[in-house]
């Protein structure tokens, strides 16, 4: 009753639910003109099975007490496959009871044999905590003595020993397994000897660098299991992605049984691709995706539909949260039904938002991809994506946040002008039919492989006839490391020969570790309200920046860089700040070079970035109100890059302007297209252009790995340059705009025809004969 009243308080509110919202959209020609695709999947009914006879009788009894009288067919299928000794990957939507697929076999094993052990791996600590809580409840209902522990960086040293000895179910993350458990496996003898099940939830999170590292951590885990005589079954869970079995098989190098025939009931699902209307055809400018997202989210909120809005950046999250909160603010100023959610909020605050979502007291949450992973927020009715998330897996994962056992749900993808977004809008079949995920993890990436070979040798000497994972040339790698002095070959074994602990040097993911804390000094008692990683701080927490937190505005009064503290004070301003990052790139060394047909090189570079100025932007109109200066040290990163130049003899006939605009256009497109061909996330590779490069003395475009040390993306780009340039030309030619737009060669700053300029440059390279 209360909720009805609250809804009625929204101006123009019409609490008629999702069906009405869908109908109203269909009836709105202006909306429908922007719809590039509307796909509906009909509702399905529940299909259940019996509990298997072989299962310990206490388990069905306990579940029945909790209201589960019959498992879904996919749960039964997973249990039966495990019973047959197969590895299983379960791929069913949110809220389909995935966790029972692995919790029950693990518990069954412990109830039968008190020595048996299970290892649960979650990509983040928060997810692990969620699952431990759920498992505790089930164990309590069982009344059995099954010890479940979280083992991560927060586990006190005093409890670690007990967990190593006695934990039946050990819940941890890949980083902890890699850096702590595997290198100290002799302390975990009980676990390794009795390991029955390894659960890897959120399988789709293991892609790119993280996935390639994960695959190698698993290889090391399997080596140790073999040493201790155990042969665990792997149970993987993933959100709906196109080919999860291949991903599992790539990461784990085992045959997998796929369980994807969801027995849980599902409501009708709608997917809408929404391309904002073109407002300036000449310039190819479309309406802002952020504003369109806001309008769609507003409509959903006014119809009383619960929704999650995914924004691309923290700033977008805050701007959207701020405007949506205005809609629901009650006379007392409370607007808790709209919440922002992103990394940087304190864990307690995040838990509070998650609880609100589950309970329904929060109706709309605006999030970065922090909520992409399966943090338990219940199931929502709608999902709005502000911009294509960059990969198909991410898109499905974010869309999966909407979807219920009964009733309809909808996902709206709002496109930006980015070439990738526009590509998806014009090629929806690419999105629905292809699945790059399996290729995203490269366990045999040379750099990663070298690292993990060292770790593995440290953990257990290699035998001369051993095969590491599915790697063909294990011996070659071992001999190379021996020649390099890392290993010693003696008596049919390769031994680690260094006092270094190799895993200490290897990080599985590339996020910055040194976080800054944000301290609110508005009240007499200063309070920590959030944290931020070191690389983002110069952009968002420079002095005088307006820092948005949960839609509230704070001004940064002092940034204590050495001590990693930012002091902020709550303000009421009608603007936000947007910092300009000045990036510089310097070549350290050229490893390889090839002058034909396109002069290209591959080597090592230093990328320095520094924030020097910021703009003040009006909150509602985004107009520029002025700017200020920032005085902060620069951030440096060594990485690998490939670069192409246009030498003097090839640019005859190109005016200076045309050359500049053409190079900028090509650079823009290479940056946009490379992730598609390198199969990496959009932020993993960056592009940089020098009109006259100090190293090559020529106009030069750089593509570099945006990850310290590099992970081989630019090496691969070096070999793919011809393809990339050809694709760039095709995209420009296919683009319907007149003279360049953000979706192709980009808007030209000085010359009218950016398209022509880019095509001329491409022709000059002879890359496009």
């Amino acid at each position: 009753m209360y909720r009805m009243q609250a809804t009625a308080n929204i101006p123009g509110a019409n609490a008629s639910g999702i069906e009405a919202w869908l109908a109203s959209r269909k009836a709105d020609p202006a909306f429908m003109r922007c719809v590039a695709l509307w796909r509906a999947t009909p509702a399905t009914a529940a299909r259940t099975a019996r509990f298997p006879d072989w299962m310990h009788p206490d388990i069905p009894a306990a579940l029945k007490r909790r209201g589960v009288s019959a498992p879904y067919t996919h749960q039964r299928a997973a249990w039966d496959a495990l019973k047959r000794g197969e590895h299983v990957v379960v791929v069913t939507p949110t809220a389909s009871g995935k966790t029972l697929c692995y919790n029950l076999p693990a518990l069954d094993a412990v109830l039968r044999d008190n020595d048996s052990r299970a290892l649960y791996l979650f990509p983040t600590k928060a997810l692990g905590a969620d699952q431990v809580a759920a498992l505790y409840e089930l164990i309590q209902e069982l009344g059995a003595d099954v010890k479940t522990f979280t083992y991560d960086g927060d586990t006190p040293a005093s409890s670690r020993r007990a967990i190593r000895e006695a934990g039946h179910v050990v819940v941890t993350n890949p980083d902890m397994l890699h850096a702590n458990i595997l290198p100290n496996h002799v302390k975990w003898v009980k676990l390794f000897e009795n390991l029955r099940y390894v659960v890897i939830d959120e399988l789709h999170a293991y892609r790119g660098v993280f996935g390639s590292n994960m695959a190698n951590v698993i290889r090391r885990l399997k080596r140790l299991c073999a040493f201790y005589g155990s042969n665990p079954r792997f149970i993987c869970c993933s959100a709906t992605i196109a080919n999860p079995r291949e991903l599992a098989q790539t990461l784990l190098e085992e045959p997998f049984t796929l369980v994807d025939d969801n027995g849980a009931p599902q409501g009708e699902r709608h997917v809408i691709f929404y391309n904002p209307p073109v407002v300036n055809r000449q310039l190819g400018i479309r309406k802002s995706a952020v504003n369109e997202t806001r309008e769609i989210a507003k409509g959903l909120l006014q119809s009383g539909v619960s929704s999650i809005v995914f924004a691309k950046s923290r700033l977008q999250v805050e701007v959207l949260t701020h405007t949506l909160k205005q809609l629901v603010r009650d006379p007392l100023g409370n607007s808790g039904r709209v919440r922002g959610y992103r990394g940087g909020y304190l864990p307690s605050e995040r838990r509070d938002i998650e609880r609100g979502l589950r309970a329904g007291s929060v109706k709309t949450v605006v999030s970065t991809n922090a909520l992409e992973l399966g943090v338990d927020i219940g199931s929502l009715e709608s999902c709005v994506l502000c911009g294509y998330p960059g990969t198909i897996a991410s898109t499905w994962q974010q869309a999966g946040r909407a979807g219920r056992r009964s009733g309809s749900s909808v996902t709206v993808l709002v496109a930006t002008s980015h070439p990738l977004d526009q590509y998806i809008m014009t090629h929806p079949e690419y999105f629905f039919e292809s699945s790059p995920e399996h290729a995203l993890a490269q366990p045999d990436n040379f750099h990663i492989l070298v690292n993990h070979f060292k770790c593995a040798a440290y953990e257990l000497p290699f035998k001369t006839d051993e095969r590491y994972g599915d790697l063909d040339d294990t011996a070659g790698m071992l001999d190379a490391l021996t020649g390099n002095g890392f290993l010693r070959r003696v008596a049919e074994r390769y031994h680690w020969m260094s006092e270094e602990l190799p895993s200490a040097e290897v990080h599985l993911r590339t996020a910055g570790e040194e976080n800054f804390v944000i301290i609110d000094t508005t009240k007499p008692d200063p309070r920590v309200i959030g944290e931020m990683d070191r690389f983002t701080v110069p952009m968002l927490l420079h002095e005088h920046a307006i820092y948005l937190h949960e839609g509230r505005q704070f001004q940064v009064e002092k940034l204590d860089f050495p001590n990693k503290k930012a002091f902020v004070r709550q303000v009421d301003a009608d603007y936000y700040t947007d910092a300009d990052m000045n990036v510089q790139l310097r070549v350290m060394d050229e490893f390889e070079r090839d002058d034909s047909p396109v002069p290209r090189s591959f080597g090592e570079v230093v990328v320095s970035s520094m924030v020097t100025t910021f703009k003040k932007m009006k909150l509602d109109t985004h107009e520029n109100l002025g700017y200020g200066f920032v005085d902060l040290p620069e951030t440096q990163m060594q990485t690998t890059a490939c670069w192409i130049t246009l030498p003097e003899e090839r640019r005859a006939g190109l005016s200076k302007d045309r050359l500049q605009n053409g190079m900028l256009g090509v650079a823009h497109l290479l940056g946009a297209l490379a992730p598609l061909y390198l199969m990496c996330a959009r932020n993993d590779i960056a592009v940089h252009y020098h009109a006259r490069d100090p190293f090559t003395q020529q106009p030069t475009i750089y593509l570099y790995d945006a990850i310290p040390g590099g992970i081989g993306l630019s090496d691969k780009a070096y070999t793919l340059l011809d393809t990339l340039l050809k694709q760039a030309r095709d995209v420009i030619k296919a683009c319907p705009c007149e003279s360049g737009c953000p979706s192709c060669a980009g808007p030209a700053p000085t010359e009218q025809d950016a398209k022509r300029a880019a095509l001329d440059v491409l022709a000059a390279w002879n890359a496009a004969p």
Partner: protein
Amino acid sequence: MIRNLRGKLQLLTQSSQPRAEPPTEESCYVRDESEPLSAYKGLTDVTAEHVRVMTLGESQPFDIRRALFLDTETTGFSGSGTIAFLIGAGFIEGDRFVTRLMLTRDYPQEPNQLNLLADLMDDMDWIVTFNGKSFDAPLLRGRFIMQGLRPRWRELNHIDLLHASRRVWKPRLERCTLQRLESALLGIEREDDLPGADVPARFFEYLKTGRFSLLDDVMRHNTQDVRTLALLLTALARAYDQAEEQPSALDVLALGRSLHRAGDIERARRCFSVASVGATAGMARVALADSYKRGGAWEQARGVYERMIDCGEGGAFPYTALAMLAEHRERDIDKAMVLTREAIRRASADELPGLEKRRARLQRKQDKR
């Protein structure tokens, strides 16, 4: 980081560097050195009672002839990829103290080395180490597991002299490294000693070159470590025997605290009394009064506090303590108030808030009447 990586890349493409042929025999290198037991005066006088106090443990039988002094030299910090390439074990044999070094000259000799250690441990009840609870013992246990020799590793009783020494000498010496203890207590000054941090590099250098003489320093270093263990155990036992007669009042106080924790209350209080002079007087009296208070001997505790006030020691502390006694034991609110005011006059900035709270509470109690 990346340069390093690229360096590796280039090296990876080169052929193997020449290296010394590994020794072919599977036996590890063993060397015994011994000295007359008379060089370890007092070692055989160490009793079960000494060990009980040193380890703060329960009383267990102890026979010095069934104690193994153990120290290892390793290839790095603890972890599954670190081996104890050199194990030094000291023990009494007849009238001599033997130091046996068991050295793995190359990886295949490790099982033999571990078996030899296990043979020694089979005849022992105790091991004596320096930081062995955290380092040597877990490392060795891990090596037995890695070599498939798990049943041969026995969990013996363990005296970790690092912990025992810290309890006694940390207040005076501040750092309790083995070398510091040697020079301060045993009169041992090592000459040309190989720093422990250089040990792994030496071993790897030897592996690469085959020059056995590179390990001379390591073996000398390890031998001295083992001998020091025996001397340190003796020194600790002697310190407890003569707790009240130690030349340093800091040592007396620390021994008193350790004895107190081990349950020897009377001896502990004697130590506190002895240490109640000079610079340690304040700390010693506080310890003594605490001991009385914990034992419920309020009158004696009060005596100590009053003595502190007479001597002008401890600032606000004795007043606060007496105020607590007055308020909670004697139920004399007025007296407690007077004492609290005295305490506030002498309080440091840290103590002040607590005392103000106390005064406010006492004020309320006074007003209620």
